[in-house]
């Protein structure tokens, strides 16, 4: 090819009036219409008039300015033909490169002789070749695009400058400087305004979004190595709080969007995968993070409202990857790493614990009758004086008290926790032909928990196919089967099966193993029986002996056909299904003991099975019209979704031996069967209109019918309207380099929450058998009280937002919202003489308001170093505006210390304010005190000032719901190196650490104390300056029980976490071309590298998990069913020994060819 060929091709194209548009990404010029009326005008003026009416920009050199005296008069003419006219009249040529149209004087010849340049364009982050990138010689119409390998050839003058541009990437200029080979890596642009955002039943250019929508991309997600996208979302989007409430592998984190708008209904956001809304609360683990392309989060009801009665908690839209280009691309991602505990929990050692237990038992004994009893009384004297078991010293501790060397001192945390490994292998193939694209992936993920014998394995795959069957018919199919196998334990605080709860009461005087290396069984139980110390079984033995395997088999998929009825009018039919089959297999053998029970004990076995089928039929009609200054997108549709779930749990007992470790070995059985169905029928419609791409309007309506609601209230309507104004598109808006984009937004909308289980509107009558003599008699009695008027809760929200871009690099998104949720689905505690403890009613009102800011700086060019930064901060304040008529508050929790009161936020921690400790009886006598206060107990503030401490002296101390959350992340690249990091922080959170209140820091002398408590406990002789209550076991007073609900245990759980730090190296392209690879990237990542917090417990995200309650609200004792939780918003922030978040170090490689 001659050196002029490219130019010639360009010229031929230009002269023939054909403007080369890059495939797909931007609007074709034929569908953009302009109206112009200019006489004797400069060409530049005409071009700027076109710029104002369209989203295109013109790029030209000064020589164009000399073209003047042009007249043009067109009305609603396509831009394509307008430019064609101009080419002839002005003797110029136009070429479109995405949103930029290059203008050059026709037949302009360069003086310098061009020379041949070969080059390759890759993605700076992934190293993948980028096909279709525009390569333009600056100031000319000379250019080309890269081929499928990302390569190009162009003849350019030696002193020329090449402009590389591509949708979604920052434009780069490269001086040719006589090079013949140029390698360019483009930096992905995370906030390019022309990106497309998925909005539910459609997508929209980012510039035209008027609601509060946050988008997170695959790259950001996968910089954190975890089992599900939810953990990866942490800190990535303002107003989206991710709480790793129990970090056991395979456990779903809690996702909260814009605060808590409900009290006793579910708080799950709706998760929609490729258009299929998942059943609320279903596991996230089935979607491997590597297969996710983008996550779009609809935060305000106006955006989310298209999902109607399920959208009040926000909507998370997941778009999985699909094939992009024709060329086969194979990508392998493999990483392996190690995880370790990252909490600050520290227990006392054996010597300290021995002193503590002895102090506690002595003081318990003496304080019951100080005049007659003394700590020096021996065992016989104590028994003669009527001492109870817990007032006797533990019989085996004397050697520890004497400081004898060489005694057992087990650090049980070291035995129960371990360093766990984590590995992931993902292999994907993508490619296609002109009409069909495919993406196929296979994934294996294996994560060992940081607790022994605890792990998650996942095998998953996905197939996605998109095909243009004919000019008018599109077809798509996706299928994602997965198997998750969890080696699980219930982190439920029961020390008979939860090794973390076991840590609290497992004394350091015992070993996990016998001298011969076998597991030590029931040693502490036997040793502690004479004095009734903690009768705890060895947690290492529990984890080794008890088998609890949960298997989740899931196939998820959908397919659609879309047919273009008329130009711009498409009918789409989508059918999707989510098939879930789970098996929980539990066996607790006889040869390990349990709390208060030494082995052997009767063995037990549980087998739980779930079979859930959820399917969706959806018909939508899309219409899109772009005519002149008007642009309209509309959608209307009908959807039907049904879930049919069956669960059986069989508990087997009377197991004679441990030969068959499953229900097969049992001879007596009890069965709990649980089935439910829910159906939702919906009609939806939305219109989005833009005038001159400057004034944006949209209106949405959804009408939902749900089987969950009472017969008197099946249907509800959820409307919303939005408006936006792109001020920077106005002609009067000062064109400045500094402020390059400005948009104002406002929305109003309503969305609903229906998460109350399938049958809450009914009075359910369940089995309650009896036995006459020994003959069983079938019995059925009501356990819940129905409500035929039961309906959804409605969230009405106003959102005002602002988007600004400066210098095309810095973007700011700000949103203020105010949401009122009314008709709360409240599980109202009712007077129990009704025969019921609670009743679900539509009652009350909660307000949430907040401010969200997202800031980003992209592609900051510091010479060889390229830098991108982004940060977000969100505040949320919630307030209960009303409860049931006449009801002022709900006080709940075992210690009655979670207060939800009208005028305050949801679930405030409520209790006494401890100000110090009493050291003498005289001091108690002269100070207002709680009934049953002993020396060494706590001084409680007399808030009412009435001279005595009553329940009225309690006050509120903050909530789990943080006042604000923030995230900050950055990406720095230098040559082939890249460094990225992300931080996540939570401010204004208070936790109730019930584990500490009852065990580690109670001073009760039953559980093992924390090191902190031990160091700061008060003891008149051993530690007279201590400020925590004196150890007291036998006579643990009501004062000490009452202050479990006090500031002592309301812990400041603010934290700032270094979520991930990653260093990556992209192998130079020239090394790879020989082996036919397009990209090899090697990376090392540290996740949760450090957490800055004052909190001393296990997990500052700890809060009750949602497991264990089936969809109809009936507790399923095997904890298998992972559906709607009920009734734990009100105890938000209750934590005990919650599985801690792990720190991990990962090394990986990504290779493409």
């Amino acid at each position: 090819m001659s050196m002029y060929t490219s130019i010639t091709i360009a010229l031929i194209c230009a002269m023939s009036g054909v403007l080369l548009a890059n495939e797909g990404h931007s609007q074709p010029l034929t569908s953009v219409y302009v109206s112009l009326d200019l006489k004797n005008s400069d060409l530049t003026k005409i071009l700027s008039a076109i710029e104002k009416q369209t989203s295109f920009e013109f790029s030209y050199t000064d020589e164009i300015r000399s073209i003047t005296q042009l007249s043009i008069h067109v009305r609603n003419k396509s831009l394509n033909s307008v430019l064609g006219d101009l080419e002839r009249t002005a003797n110029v040529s136009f070429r479109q490169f995405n949103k930029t149209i290059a203008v050059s004087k026709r037949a302009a010849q360069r003086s310098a002789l061009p020379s041949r340049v070969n080059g390759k364009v890759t993605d700076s982050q992934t190293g993948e070749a980028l096909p279709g990138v525009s390569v333009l010689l600056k100031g000319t119409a000379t250019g080309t695009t890269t081929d499928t390998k990302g390569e190009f050839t162009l003849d350019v003058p030696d002193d020329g400058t090449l402009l590389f541009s591509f949708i979604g990437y920052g434009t780069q200029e490269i001086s040719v400087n006589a090079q013949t080979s140029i390698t360019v890596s483009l930096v992905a642009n995370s906030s390019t305004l022309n990106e497309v955002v998925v909005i539910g039943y459609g997508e929209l250019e980012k510039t035209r979004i008027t609601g509060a929508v946050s988008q997170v991309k695959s790259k950001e997600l996968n910089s954190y190595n975890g089992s599900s996208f939810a953990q990866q979302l942490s800190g990535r989007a303002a107003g989206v709080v991710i709480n790793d409430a129990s970090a056991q592998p395979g456990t779903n984190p809690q996702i909260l969007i814009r605060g808590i708008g409900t009290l006793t209904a579910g708080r799950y956001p709706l998760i929609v995968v490729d258009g299929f809304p998942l059943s609320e609360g279903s596991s996230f683990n089935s979607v491997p993070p590597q297969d996710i392309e983008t996550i779009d989060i609809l935060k305000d009801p106006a955006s989310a409202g298209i999902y109607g009665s399920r959208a009040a908690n926000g909507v998370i839209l997941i778009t999985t990857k699909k094939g992009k280009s024709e060329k086969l691309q194979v990508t392998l991602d493999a990483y392996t790493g190690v995880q370790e505990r990252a909490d600050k929990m520290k227990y006392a050692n054996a010597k300290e614990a021995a002193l503590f237990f002895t102090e506690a038992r002595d003081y318990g004994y003496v304080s019951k009758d100080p005049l007659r009893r003394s700590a020096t009384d021996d065992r016989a004297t104590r028994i003669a004086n009527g001492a109870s078991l817990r007032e006797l010293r533990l019989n085996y501790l004397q050697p520890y008290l004497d400081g004898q060397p060489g005694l057992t001192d087990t650090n049980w945390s070291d035995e129960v926790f371990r360093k766990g490994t984590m590995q992931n292998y993902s292999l994907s193939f993508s490619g296609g032909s002109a009409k069909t694209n495919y993406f196929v992936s296979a994934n294996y993920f294996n994560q060992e928990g940081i607790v022994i014998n605890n792990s998650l394995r996942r095998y998953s795959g996905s197939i996605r196919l998109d095909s243009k069957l004919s000019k008018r018919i599109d077809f798509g199919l996706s299928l994602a089967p997965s198997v998750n196998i969890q080696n699980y334990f219930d982190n439920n605080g029961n020390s008979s099966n939860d090794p973390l709860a076991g840590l609290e009461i497992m004394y350091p005087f015992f070993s996990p193993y016998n001298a011969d290396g076998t597991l030590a069984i029931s040693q502490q139980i036997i040793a502690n029986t004479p004095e009734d110390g903690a009768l705890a079984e060895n947690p290492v033995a529990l984890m080794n002996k008890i088998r609890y395997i949960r298997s989740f088999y899931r196939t998820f998929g959908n397919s659609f056909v879309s047919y273009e009825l008329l130009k711009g009018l498409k009918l789409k039919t989508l059918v999707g299904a989510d098939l879930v089959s789970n098996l929980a297999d539990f066996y607790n053998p006889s040869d390990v003991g349990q709390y208060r029970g030494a082995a052997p004990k009767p063995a037990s076995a549980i087998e739980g099975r779930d079979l859930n089928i959820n399917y969706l039929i959806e018909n939508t009609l899309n219409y899109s019209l772009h005519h002149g200054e008007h642009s309209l997108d509309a959608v209307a549709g009908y959807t039907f979704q049904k879930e049919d779930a069956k669960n059986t749990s069989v508990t087997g007992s009377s197991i004679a031996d441990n030969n068959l470790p499953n229900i097969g070995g049992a001879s007596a059985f009890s069965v709990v069967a649980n089935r439910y169905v829910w159906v939702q029928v919906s009609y939806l419609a939305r219109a989005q209109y833009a005038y001159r791409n400057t004034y944006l309007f949209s209106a949405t309506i959804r009408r939902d019918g749900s089987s969950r609601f009472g017969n008197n209230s099946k249907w509800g309507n959820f409307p919303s309207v939005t408006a936006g104004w792109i001020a920077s598109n106005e002609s009067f808006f000062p064109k400045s380099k500094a402020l390059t984009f400005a948009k104002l937004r406002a929305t109003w909308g309503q969305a609903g929450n229906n998460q109350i289980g399938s049958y809450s509107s009914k009075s359910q009558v369940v089995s309650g058998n009896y036995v006459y003599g020994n003959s069983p008699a079938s019995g059925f009695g009501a356990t819940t009280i129905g409500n035929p008027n039961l309906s959804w809760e409605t969230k009405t929200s106003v959102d005002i937002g602002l988007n600004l871009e400066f210098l095309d690099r810095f973007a700011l998104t700000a949103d203020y919202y105010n949401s009122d949720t009314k008709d709360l689905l409240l599980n109202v505690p009712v007077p129990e003489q009704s025969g019921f403890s609670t009743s679900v009613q539509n009652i009350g009102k909660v307000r949430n308001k907040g401010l969200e800011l997202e800031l980003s700086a992209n592609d900051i060019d510091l010479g060889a170093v390229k830098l991108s930064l982004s940060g977000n901060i969100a505040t949320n304040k919630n307030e209960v505006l009303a409860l049931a008529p006449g009801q002022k508050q709900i006080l709940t929790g075992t210690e009655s210390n979670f207060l939800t009161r009208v005028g305050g936020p949801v679930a405030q921690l409520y209790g006494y304010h401890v100000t110090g400790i009493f050291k003498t009886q005289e001091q108690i006598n002269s100070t207002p005190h709680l009934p049953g206060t002993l020396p060494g107990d706590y001084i409680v503030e007399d808030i009412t000032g009435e001279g005595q401490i009553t329940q009225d002296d309690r006050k509120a101390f903050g909530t789990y719901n943080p006042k604000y959350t923030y995230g900050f992340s950055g990406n720095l690249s230098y040559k082939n190196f890249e460094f990225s990091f992300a931080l996540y922080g939570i401010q204004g959170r208070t936790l109730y650490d019930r584990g500490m209140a009852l065990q580690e820091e109670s001073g009760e002398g039953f559980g093992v104390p924390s090191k902190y408590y031990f160091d700061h406990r008060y003891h008149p002789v051993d530690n007279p300056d201590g400020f925590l209550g004196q150890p007291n076991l036998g006579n643990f007073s009501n004062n000490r029980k009452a202050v479990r609900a006090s500031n002592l245990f309301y812990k400041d759980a603010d934290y700032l976490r270094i979520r991930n730090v990653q260093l990556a190296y992209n192998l130079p392209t020239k090394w790879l071309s020989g082996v036919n690879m397009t990209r090899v990237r090697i990376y090392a990542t540290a996740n949760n590298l450090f957490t800055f917090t004052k909190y001393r417990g296990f997990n500052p995200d700890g809060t009750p998990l949602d497991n264990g309650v089936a969809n109809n609200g009936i507790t399923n004792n095997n904890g298998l069913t992972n559906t709607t939780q009920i009734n734990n918003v009100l105890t938000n922030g209750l934590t005990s020994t919650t599985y801690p978040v792990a720190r991990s170090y990962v090394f990986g490689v990504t290779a493409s060819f």
Partner: protein
Amino acid sequence: MKKIVISIIICSLAVTACTDQLYQDTITSKDLSTFPKSEIELEEYVNATYGGLQASGLYGLYMPALGEIPSDNTFDEVPANDDGMYGQLDEFSTTTSNTIVSGTWRDSYQAIQKTNVVLNRLPEITYKDENTKKARSGEMKFIRALLYFNLVRLYGPVPLALGETADPNTYFGQGRTPATEVYAQITKDLTEAIDELPVNAGNPGRVIKTAAQTLLAKVYLTQANTAAAKTLLEAVVASGKHTLMTKPGDVFRIDNENNAEIIFAVQFASGVNGNNEGSAMFQIFSPSGTQSGAKGHNLPTKGLYALYTASDLRKGTYIDVTPAGIPLSKKLTLPTTVITDGGSDIVVLRYADVLLMLAEIENGLHNPTVAAGYLDKIRTRAGLTGTTAVTEEELTDAIALERRLEFVGEGHRWFDLLRTGKAITVMNQWFKDNGKSITLDEHNLLLPIPQGQRDTDPTIEQNDGY
């Protein structure tokens, strides 16, 4: 175009079919709006009402403890265990958030509501045999009366609810019903029950006429209406329906349940319905360390054990000691399946109680000889000689002692102390004798109202002193 037409047709057809699907019935539970509607269904509700008595807040666990652990008969070996729920009752440090206090309240009202549902539905349902229908009415009234009798003795005035609940909100602001009104309702229910109930039970464990008579007598006795109580108790004796077992060892034998001495017992069975018809009482009330998960709550005191003389046949059959010398009640049998599946029935009323109540009444009516006669029936059966008590005062003490010895573990002693007005003096002396600095006052005679109920509805006022 054809395709479009087809899809539109499918769409619109689907719409109607789908809208019908919005009405979904429960699948694995029944629905109170359509159940119970027939005899067989109402019988299931009746069974569930009896089943309600098995709840841990009632005769599954707490009731026998509430009736005895505050007294000098039983104590909590490890008072701090289980968050002190038993220990607080034992040591009179009961808090408003004690889970026994809240559990018994809740389970009582849940069972009462079941009786209300049956009584409300009964008139509209046709029974094959009118007598069965009448008996069911009597059974429900007996159970309702028993539960209100417990409630009013434990908590004082309590809310009175007698109808089937349609809207639970209507109970807000109801407050507490005066004790006299509660007693009036108990009396009314039992009086009607006596008329409706059959002499013989259709199945073992069902409420019979003598059960209602005995319970009403106890209610009258509690209200010091000895004349009315005497008439009823004598009718029970005269019915010939009940006799004392010849040996104490036969009364609680697991293979001799529902014997002629038992008037009413809440039924439990081991190994039935997938181990769901037993109680955990044996486990919870066994001395710590003697059984898997044993908690040592509600153990007989050493003082009580010492009161059994060497020749007392009840020693070793009603009560025994572990090798370590810790007394335990033998009225419960070790489960053969799992430890929480105890099969022993919990006896609420038995003939020995009838005789000892008569002894108490006759003594109060200045008939010490007649009283001694009733008393000696129990003593003789226990292998003891006749009472040496002669004066009314001596007999009062002898009868009270005999009740302690005879009914250990059955949850009577605390109610006896309350009924006879001796709780404060007896218990203060007992604590003094046992070196414990615990003193009772008037407020300790009632439990607190559960904090949760006060939080829900502040019109339910708290008892004084809590």
